[in-house]
């Protein structure tokens, strides 16, 4: 395969910036919705380069762990405390729910396993036949087909899924609908797009007149995607273009989508920092009810929910972490008064600092001072 050298060739990046400078006079703001894009942007200082050309690239709700609500996390924590084995991805482990995290649950004796894949969670269920194993399943369209494929393939009797899966395009529409800021274009997530394809975003450009470019994750991918967005704007167009052609086909991955649609149905869910977004979450279809933790432990969860509502009412005033605003792109992490002071990856307060895909974590890791 072609070497990665050219994906990172600085001369190409400089060439793009120089051309952008000549093309543009005003200020443009583009948003991406993927933690991996944010990593590339901050790590290689693309935001600093682009700023010279009058272009701001800001992160949106692209971190699956971060957008999971405290409420969903607290259900997982309570199930763990009630004696179930919880298996989930590493980034989720330390994120606080309403009251505590899965890490806290484990510290007080609950069984919580960190897994790399749904397959690992199934292996745990096979090894612990006498216990109930719940896979707290998070992620966007990239992860949901894997979870679905495992369900279709058959899972052990003692295994179920607590789904916090979410879909990207509805969140993009919601961001525009909320109208908190001007977004001149979207950089769309390459790997989500490899599943859902180019067509899945077209209604957004048509409806709101906003240009979109699907991008890969090497620095030049992102730089060239920005160039493509600017070119679209100059041409007075608003459509969905694909920069990441080596991975994303126009109609995505049909096989993966069929698997996902066979197991999951779209439901309305809230995202951290957002109100309820229509058809933006995935829950198991009725056919797979016996694998759905929400159904299997319905009574238990009802009880958890009642206690939670009381707790949340008490807590609503102590909102100090600004993760919600970071996820909507309203503030940059450095604008949170706690950034780098009370809150750091060693002692994180919110999920945006816990997760390696969170904007606060990424900024701290590469630029402790937080300055642009």
């Amino acid at each position: 395969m072609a070497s990665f050298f050219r994906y990172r060739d600085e001369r190409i990046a400089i060439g793009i910036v120089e051309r952008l400078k000549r093309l543009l006079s005003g200020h443009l703001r583009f948003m991406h919705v993927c933690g991996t894009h944010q990593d590339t942007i901050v790590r290689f200082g693309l935001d600093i380069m682009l700023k010279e050309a009058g272009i701001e690239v800001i992160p949106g709700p692209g971190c699956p762990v971060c957008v999971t609500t405290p409420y969903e996390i607290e259900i997982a924590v309570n199930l763990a405390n009630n004696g179930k084995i919880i298996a989930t991805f590493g980034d989720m482990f330390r994120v606080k729910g309403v009251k505590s995290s899965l890490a806290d649950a484990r510290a007080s004796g609950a069984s919580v396993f960190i897994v790399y894949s749904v397959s690992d969670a199934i292996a745990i269920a096979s090894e612990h036949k006498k216990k109930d194993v719940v896979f707290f399943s998070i992620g966007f369209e990239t992860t949901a087909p894997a979870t679905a494929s495992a369900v279709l393939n058959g899972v052990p009797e003692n295994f179920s899924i607590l789904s916090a899966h979410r879909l990207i395009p509805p969140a993009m529409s919601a961001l525009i609908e909320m109208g908190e800021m001007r977004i001149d274009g979207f950089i769309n997530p390459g790997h989500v797009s490899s599943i859902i394809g180019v067509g899945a975003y077209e209604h957004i450009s048509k409806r709101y007149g906003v240009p979109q470019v699907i991008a890969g994750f090497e620095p030049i991918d992102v730089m060239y995607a920005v160039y493509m967005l600017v070119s679209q704007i100059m041409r007075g167009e608003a459509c969905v273009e694909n920069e990441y052609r080596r991975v994303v086909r126009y109609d995505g991955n049909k096989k993966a989508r069929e698997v996902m649609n066979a197991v999951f149905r779209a439901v309305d869910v809230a995202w951290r920092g957002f109100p309820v977004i229509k058809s933006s979450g995935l829950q198991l279809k009725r056919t797979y009810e016996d694998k759905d933790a929400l159904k299997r432990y319905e009574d238990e969860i009802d009880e958890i929910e009642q206690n939670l509502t009381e707790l949340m009412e008490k807590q609503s005033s102590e909102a100090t972490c600004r993760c919600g605003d970071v996820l909507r792109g309203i503030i940059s992490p450095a604008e949170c008064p706690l950034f780098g002071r009370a809150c750091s990856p060693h002692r994180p307060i919110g999920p945006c600092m816990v997760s390696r895909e969170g904007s606060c974590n990424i900024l701290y890791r590469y630029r402790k001072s937080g300055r642009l």
Partner: protein
Amino acid sequence: MCLGIPARIVKVKGERKSLADFGGGVMREIDISLVDVREGEYVIVHAGFAISVIDEEEAEETMKIWRLFSDTETSELR
């Protein structure tokens, strides 16, 4: 967790599993049930599952376009 990593399909083992080479001596078994793939091809692996096959011709095409930017003086690209 949302990271997608390229890997080469080394040995397909049945319908779902394959050995994949992640480079730097890292070999892992991955699930290939979501793609149609042959040995020797490159895939993007996400949370243990191959989610897309990399098209090497497209990769070359992309590089060709980019190269035009590294020489801003003579480039013909608009």
